[in-house]
């Protein structure tokens, strides 16, 4: 979990991992290899990517969007078909009902699910997610967070997840990396995070607690 305010460098960090941005100094290691040493196309197809605005191809059906990377990787059609059914099932969109729809025929939450399905399409070992649930209404967001947590417990992928929402970080993260004006402030487990005496961390925890106040009265 990369947690921090806007402009603190969360998205930049994410984009350094899949080479959308290039580091001006230092190295980014993916599976022990520097990003600069990877074949960039191979690296990107190795990493699933889901963003807030989704970025689904508007001229592709749900099926074609989800099958994007498997097709680029020239999987046999039969395998692609099976994989699409499987992934759509995982994100709670039955293929029979949704596979042939276009993105503009879906709700925001459904589009976000397709975005996640597309990121999972070729079963990449790593997932990058940039505030994937940020634009959703609170109910849909809570539902998708819960489902994503369950999915992650099953899939056990390496996920780098950008958020500015403390509760989301606490709910979904194993480790929370707190970022502040372009640098890493510290890395904590959720338990450490809520008990840490560090001043900046306290401010996040207090902000979170303020929203919980109502339940204690």
């Amino acid at each position, binding site marked *: 979990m990369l947690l921090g305010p806007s402009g603190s460098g969360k998205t930049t960090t994410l984009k350094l991992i*899949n080479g*959308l941005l290039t580091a001006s100094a230092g190295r980014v290691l993916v599976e022990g290899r520097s990003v600069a040493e990877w074949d960039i*196309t*191979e*690296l*990107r*197809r190795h*990493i699933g*990517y889901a*963003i807030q*605005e*989704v*970025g*689904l*191809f*508007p*001229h*592709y059906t749900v099926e074609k969007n989800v099958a*994007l*990377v498997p097709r*680029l990787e020239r999987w046999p059609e039969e395998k692609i078909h099976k994989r699409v059914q499987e992934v759509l099932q995982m994100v709670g969109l039955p293929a029979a009902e949704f596979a042939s729809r*276009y993105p*503009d*025929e879906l709700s925001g939450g459904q589009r976000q699910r397709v975005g996640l399905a*597309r990121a999972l399409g070729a079963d990449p070992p790593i997932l*990058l997610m940039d505030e994937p649930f940020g634009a959703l209404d609170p109910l849909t967001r809570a539902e998708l967070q819960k489902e994503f947590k369950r999915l992650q417990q099953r899939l056990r992928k390496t996920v780098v997840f950008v958020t500015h929402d403390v509760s989301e970080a606490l709910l979904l993260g194993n480790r929370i990396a707190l970022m502040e004006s372009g640098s890493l402030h510290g890395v904590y487990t959720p338990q450490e995070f809520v008990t840490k005496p560090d001043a900046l961390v306290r401010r996040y925890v207090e902000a979170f607690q303020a929203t919980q106040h109502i339940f204690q009265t």
Partner: protein
Amino acid sequence: MLEFFAAHKREIATLTGEHLWLVGISMLLAIAVGIPLGILLTRRPGWKTAVLGSNSVIQTIPGLALFGLLLPLPWLGARADRLAIFALTLYALLPIIQNTYVGISGVAAPVREAAVAMGLTNRQLLWQVELPLAANVIVAGVRVATVFVIGLATIAAAIGAGGLGEFIFRGLAMVNNDVILAGAIPAALMALIADGMLALLQRRLTRAHH
């Protein structure tokens, strides 16, 4: 008027054929040059001013003047139809280049970013994402250019390149409206039909992704 049309129907058909040929070849050339140029501008935005600027300058030269100016050129001036096709192609380029550039630039940033992040190569990005999404805007440019060139091609008759302009210039010289209309009406019909067909194509491309 109808009598004149009936009496000259063979000549009308021949000149319409010539006209179609001038317009058709010019448009094919303009598309073949203009779309790649428009794509190039999206990759090299620094060239935009130079390319679109020089094309705008060409657009400001009156058609008749451009035909006249090109006439003394060695290879081009040797055949009237060759020269006419060259000039018409130049005029058709601007809307095609411009719309290709605008159409591709109009692809939403998150869509392009996601495509790159998912590992599409530059070429795959172009063919699978940018061109399909820009297609209806590009066709709109081709449509504007086609209608414009069909009208402009009537002037080609002034340098002896044939086409429906033959009737128009002949009619002007004879002060005979029937003769002018024998050129003007088929040209107008051709423009309307081309416009309608391309509009239909545009609508289909728009509907293809809703």
